[in-house]
């Protein structure tokens, strides 16, 4: 097309030919949102930083033994005479009230905390996302029914609901804690997803796809889903930190993860009473939690931007 040549201020033939060649090369490549998004993602420093932090956290969760020579489950790990000793050489994070090394416990606590955070986030996103999409797409009485069911779940406060479910089923390990939080947490994702689907499904591009003869599967997954994910990604990555912290609240009430299991939430709730006299016991596990949450939020943010063509 001539538009291209008009734009060019230069008449340098060689440069022109080179540019045309580059254009043709670019057009020969078959772009798609996924490919473009991934190519863009790899170039973003925020993605690399958050990715590395998350890899490190995963390594901590999978093989804590690599990061510390001590084991929090060995005999004589906790020495009461060390109670609340501030950071010293060899024990850079200091000791907690029981005289246990905080560094080792933080390393070993990563696994439970990350499992709770990640599992709950995935579960709420899947349940809330799927049910929300169904309600938004089908509408009518199915939407009304699903919305009422969600309201029942969201009417239960986390702590009351947690107490209720735990007293019925027992538990106290990561999986039951994740389950409780997933059951009580999915309505939030549901509401966002349902709203997004409803606001997108009346767009003309959906009508255009239907006019072409597209089936409901193609419309749901090719057209509506990619346009609804951005707010869902934001809310779920932010919730990941909330879930890790909420696990601490459950533990505090005796229905979350219990001794001798370790989690950051448990360590934080133990240390907060003595924050003024020995802040180190709180700061180190809380710092680990903050870094984790930050890494996931950064990842969510950067993924959201990379898969939005307008943000590139």
């Amino acid at each position, binding site marked *: 097309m001539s538009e291209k040549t008009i734009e060019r201020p230069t008449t340098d033939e060689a440069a022109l030919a080179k540019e045309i060649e580059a254009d043709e090369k670019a057009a020969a490549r078959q772009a798609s949102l996924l490919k473009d998004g991934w190519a863009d993602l790899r170039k973003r420093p925020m993605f690399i930083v958050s990715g590395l932090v998350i890899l490190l956290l995963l390594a901590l969760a999978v093989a804590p033994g690599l990061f510390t020579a001590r084991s929090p489950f060995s005999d004589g790990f906790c020495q009461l005479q060390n109670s609340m000793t501030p950071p010293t050489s060899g024990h850079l994070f200091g000791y907690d009230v029981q005289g246990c090394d905080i560094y080792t416990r933080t390393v070993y606590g990563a696994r439970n905390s990350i499992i709770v955070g990640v599992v709950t986030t995935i579960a709420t996103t899947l349940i809330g996302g799927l049910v929300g999409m169904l309600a938004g797409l089908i509408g009518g009485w199915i939407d009304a029914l699903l919305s009422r069911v969600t309201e029942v779940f969201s009417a239960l406060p986390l702590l009351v609901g947690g107490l209720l479910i735990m007293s019925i089923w027992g538990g106290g390990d990561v999986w039951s804690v994740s389950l409780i939080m997933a059951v009580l947490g999915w309505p939030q994702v549901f509401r966002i997803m349902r709203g997004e689907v409803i606001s997108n499904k009346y767009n*003309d591009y959906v009508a255009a796809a239907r006019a072409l*003869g597209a089936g409901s599967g193609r419309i749901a997954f090719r057209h509506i889903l990619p346009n609804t994910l951005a707010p869902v990604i934001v809310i779920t990555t932010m919730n990941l930190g909330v879930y890790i912290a909420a696990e601490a609240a459950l533990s505090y009430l005796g229905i979350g993860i219990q001794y001798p299991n370790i989690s950051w939430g448990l360590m934080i709730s133990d240390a907060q009473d003595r924050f003024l006299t020995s802040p180190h016991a709180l700061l180190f596990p809380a710092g680990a939690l903050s870094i984790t949450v930050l890494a996931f939020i950064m990842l969510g943010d950067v993924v959201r931007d990379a898969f939005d063509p307008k943000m590139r």
Partner: protein
Amino acid sequence: MAETTKATEPGDATPNVSPLEVADVHSVEEKVAALDAPVERGEPILQVRNLVKHFPLTQGIIVKRHVGAVKAVDGVSFDLYQGETLGIVGESGCGKSTVAKVLMNLEKATAGEVFYKGQDITKLSGRALKAVRRNIQMIFQDPYTSLNPRMTVGDIIGEPFDIHPEVAPKGDRRQRVRELLDVVGLNPEYINRYPHQFSGGQRQRIGIARGLALNPEVIICDEPVSALDVSVQAQVINLMERLQDEFNLSYVFIAHDLSIVRHISDRVGVMYLGRIAEIGSDEQIYEHPTHPYTQALLSAVPVPDPDAREGRERIILTGDVPSPANPPSGCSFRTRCWKAQDKCAEETPLLAVPERFKGVDTPAAHESACHFAEEKDVVHAG
């Protein structure tokens, strides 16, 4: 409900209808095959009969009671001939876009039929409907919402081939998309770009390319240029005219801009409150309107000649368009019409050639739904 004088009921296989269609086409294969049969130029390709679309109004939370209906389209009939452009004009809310949606089967018709090559497409579903979709496509009004922002241009224009794989073999599709871009006047190298990187006019060209991908015979254009700048409107209109000649397309062109409709249309239908008030060739409608509503609409068109403007009569309508949920009895235009008499409230005027013009060789002898249809030249000095 308005009835047509063209009393041909296509189901009866009257001579008006091409011989292909007809009652004993039963299996899906036969139906699909019939849909692909060619139609001669000048033959009706789309026949709309008494099309009705009512949107129910409900009350109550658990048990929904019907308390009425918005009569968006209330008995519309027209023929679209092969290779022609039928313009449909009317003010906002008169049901133009609903007609487009029902024609596209995006909304189910409440009653009435749309015959495409003799088959009533309002009753089709599944494979037969998919086959119809290959032949009837649509161009949307708003180029900013009609393209999925998260798909590349290549994916958007190539999607028709994913849905109808029989149209283009897999290896060919990229090439076809590039050709389509070229046909609508876009650089084929833009194939990997996203919609937001284009201007409104370029986006509308992408929408047109998508509509053309399946080689349709009929394109329903729902206000295709009203969201564009005036300078770009002309480009897109010219493109559409060029494509019509090149691909032998038939257009239903819906718009509220009278001058654009006149420019592109062979015939024009004027809609008011869900019904067609007057229909005829563009000359008949613009130079010899007989329906008071058409006359009022035309008298509002700006005239670029100060002298003529001084001389001509302006018809100023008073009041608002009545609610389509509760249209007036009889003629729906009578509440704003200066000619209205008791008869207008009692008797619904049919869309027909007015008695007084019957058998007379005058351009005023075209279908007009008015008891007191008479010619009035409003465009020129009155």
